[in-house]
C-alpha cells in the first residue's frame, strides 16, 4: 500500500515537470497528397469532368415522356408469362445451358489449376510465372460477349462456341483467384513439408493443396453460378443454350414466352446460388 502511494507521488512529480517545460504541440492528420494546390486542383478536375460527362448524355425528356406508354405496352406484353406454348424449346435450352455450364466449369478449372500453380510467385520459376500470368491476363482482358462473338465466328453457331467461351473465361477468373490463395498460404506449413524430403508433387499435394482446398471448392461453385448466368448471354450472340431460346422469343415478339424463360433462368440461378452457399459453408 505504501509502495503504491509513493509511486503515485512520483508520477505526479513527473507530469508536473513536463507540463512546465513544454508549450502545447498541435497535431493535424497528414494528407495523402501533401501539396495543397495539387490536392485542390485534382478535386476540381474530377468535378469538372463529371459535370461535362453528364452534359454529353443529351437526355431528351420530351421523347422519354412520349415513349412511356410504348414502354408500358411492352411490359404488358410480358404478363402473363407463357410457359406452355414453347415449353419444349425452354427445356431443351435449359438442358443445353446446363450441359455447357457443367462442361465448361470442369474443363476451365482443370486447365486453371496448372496455370494457377505456375502463376503463384511462391511456387513457380520466374519464366513460368510470367507465361502463366500472361495467360490469365489475356483471358481476363476480354468480356464473355466479345469472346463469344469471336468463337461463334470461329466454330459456327451452337453450344460448342458457348462451351469454349465459358471455359476460356473460367481460366482467367479461377486461376487468378486461386493464385492469390496459393500466394497467401502459410510459408511454415509448406516449409515443413519440404523439410521432410518430399518431392515437388508431394509438396504441392501435402503442403499447398490442403491449404487452398476450401477456397477452390468455393470458387468452383461460384464459377458454376456465373457460368450458368453467362451461358444465357452467350446464347444471345449465337452460342446456344437458353440464351438462344430467349433471343428467338424476342425476335418473334413472343414476349410472354420470353418472360417465362427469364423466370426459369432466375429460378435456376437462385437454386444454384442457394445450394452452393450451403456447400461452401460446409467446406469452410
Amino acid at each position: 500500500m505504501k509502495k503504491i502511494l509513493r509511486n503515485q507521488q512520483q508520477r505526479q512529480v513527473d507530469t508536473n515537470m513536463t507540463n512546465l517545460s513544454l508549450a502545447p504541440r498541435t497535431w493535424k492528420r497528414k494528407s495523402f497528397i501533401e501539396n495543397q494546390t495539387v490536392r485542390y486542383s485534382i478535386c476540381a478536375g474530377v468535378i469538372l469532368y463529371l459535370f461535362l460527362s453528364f452534359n454529353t448524355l443529351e437526355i431528351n425528356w420530351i421523347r422519354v415522356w412520349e415513349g412511356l406508354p410504348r414502354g408500358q405496352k411492352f411490359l404488358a406484353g410480358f404478363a402473363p408469362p407463357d410457359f406452355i406454348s414453347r415449353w419444349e424449346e425452354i427445356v431443351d435450352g435449359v438442358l443445353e445451358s446446363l450441359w455447357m455450364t457443367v462442361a465448361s466449369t470442369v474443363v476451365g478449372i482443370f486447365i486453371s489449376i496448372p496455370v494457377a500453380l505456375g502463376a503463384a510467385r511462391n511456387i513457380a520459376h520466374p519464366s513460368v510465372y510470367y507465361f502463366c500470368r500472361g495467360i490469365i491476363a489475356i483471358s481476363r482482358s476480354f468480356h464473355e460477349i466479345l469472346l463469344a462473338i469471336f468463337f461463334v465466328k470461329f466454330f459456327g453457331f451452337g453450344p460448342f462456341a458457348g462451351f469454349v467461351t465459358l471455359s476460356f473465361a473460367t481460366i482467367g477468373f479461377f486461376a487468378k483467384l486461386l493464385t492469390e490463395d496459393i500466394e497467401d498460404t502459410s510459408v511454415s506449413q509448406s516449409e515443413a513439408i519440404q523439410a521432410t524430403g518430399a518431392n515437388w508433387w508431394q509438396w504441392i499435394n501435402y503442403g499447398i493443396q490442403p491449404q487452398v482446398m476450401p477456397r477452390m471448392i468455393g470458387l468452383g461453385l461460384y464459377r458454376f453460378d456465373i457460368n450458368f448466368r453467362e451461358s444465357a448471354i452467350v446464347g444471345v450472340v449465337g452460342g446456344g443454350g437458353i440464351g438462344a431460346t430467349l433471343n428467338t422469343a424476342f425476335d418473334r415478339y413472343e414476349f410472354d414466352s420470353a418472360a417465362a424463360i427469364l423466370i426459369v433462368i432466375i429460378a435456376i440461378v437462385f437454386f444454384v446460388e442457394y445450394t452452393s452457399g450451403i456447400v461452401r459453408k460446409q467446406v469452410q
Partner: protein
Amino acid sequence: MLRLEALHKRYATGEVALTGVDLEVIKGQVMALIGPSGAGKSTLIRCVNRLVPPTGGRIFFNNEDVTRLSSRKLLKMRRQMGMIFQEFALVERLSVMENVLSGRLGYVGFWRSFLRKFPQTDIDKAFRLLKRIGLDHMVDKRADELSGGQRQRVGIARALIQDPQLLLVDEPTASLDPKTSRQIMRLICELAHERNLACVINIHDVPLAKMFAQRVVGLRLGEIVYDGTPEGLNDDVLTEIYGEEDWHINKYAPKAAQQESSWDEEDTEEPAATAS
C-alpha cells in the same frame, strides 16, 4: 557428423545473416543455439537443410557437402534431418496421422502418398510414435483441433518418423506456456538421447537452454560469440551475446525476484529497492 565451414548467408535484400560461421556438432550431442532476434539462428538451421540456400562456405553432413548436392540428392539428404518448427507448422487441414506420415514423404513415391497408401511398416511406426507422445487416441483429429502442446508433439513425431540422424529444432517453445515448454523440451531431449541423434535447438529462453542442452552456442549478428558449457553462461557472456543489459536489476520488482528468477510469486513486505 555436422560440420559448418565459413558458412555465409546474404539475403537478396542485401541483409547479411551469417558471416562465416564455423561449427561442428557430434553424434548424440544436444546443442542449444541462443542469441537475440535477427542474430541468424533460424537462417543457420535452415541453411543446413537448404530451405534457405547459403551464399558461401560449406556444410558437411556425414562428410558429404550439402551445399553442392543435386536436387535429387538433396531430397535424400533432407530425410536424414528432422525439423521441428516454431508455431508447430503442422498442415492444419490434414489429420494428425497425415501430418505424422508426411514425415515419410521422402521415402515413398508420389502416387502412394497421394492415395494415402503408406507401407504398413510406416503406419506401425506412426502408431508407435503417437503412442509414445500420448496422442494415439487422436489419430483422425484435424491438426487445428489440437492444443499448442499437442501440436508440437505431432511436430516431433513428424520429424522422428523420418528416422533422422540430426534434429533441427527452431524455437520449439516460442508459443507454449512454461510448463508445456519444459515437457516439450524434455520429450525432444529424451527422444534424441534414445536414438543418439545430434540436435541443434534454437531457443530464446536462456534458462531452458541451460536446463536441457549439453552445449550452448551464442550467436550475435551472424557470428559465434560463445561456445561452451551451459554452466559457463554468466552475465558477461549474456552481455556479449545479447548486448548491454542489467540482467538482474528491476527496481520495481519485489526484492526476492532480483536474486533468482523464480516461478512462484512471493509477496514480500519489503519496500521496493532504491537502486540509485
